[in-house]
């Protein structure tokens, strides 16, 4: 996650500029993983200058409902709240791939224009969600 956070913040800003909102949800079990505590979320957001809401899913109900698998995991919806994107941010993983296609941004720009996401999507990769049980 640390490897992609600056790109994620940049892409969220770019999406905002074309009228697409973003929210970040922290679903991990904070009881057994105190590094993910609410206070640390605040520090993390300040350190990386989040410009979008950052919320905690304390019961993990939202993550389960959305069938989230890992962090980061991207869900892109159209104006009717229909899922249209479940891919990755871009082709980079732990290190930046020069010239990597901005897959999330391009997909959501398409969703904004047409209501539909791209047929081909590459899954996001990340750390597994820390479930309570």
């Amino acid at each position, binding site marked *: 996650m640390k490897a992609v956070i600056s790109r994620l913040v940049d892409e969220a800003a770019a999406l905002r500029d074309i009228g697409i909102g973003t929210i970040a949800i922290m679903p991990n079990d904070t009881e057994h993983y105190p590094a993910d505590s609410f206070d640390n979320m605040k520090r993390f957001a300040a350190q990386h200058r989040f410009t979008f809401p950052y919320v905690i899913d304390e019961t993990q109900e939202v993550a389960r409902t959305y069938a989230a698998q890992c962090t980061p995991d991207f869900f892109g919806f159209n104006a009717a709240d229909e*899922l249209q994107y479940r891919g990755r941010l871009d082709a980079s993983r732990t290190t930046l791939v020069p010239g990597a296609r901005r897959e999330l941004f391009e997909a959501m720009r398409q969703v904004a224009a047409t209501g539909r996401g791209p047929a081909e999507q590459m899954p996001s990769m990340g750390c597994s969600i820390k479930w309570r049980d």
Partner: protein
Amino acid sequence: MAPALPGICDFGWKARDFALRGIDGRTWSLADVHGPKARSSPSSAITVPT
């Protein structure tokens, strides 16, 4: 690194509403993050590092 549902986008799946506490003290819902045309919602997006 764990893959997230490889290659699967359940097109048309309807987003469920939520009410979650933000670091700003506000409770956020799905409607709050709507842009005028679409929304990018990186659910479970951020893991706070140690």
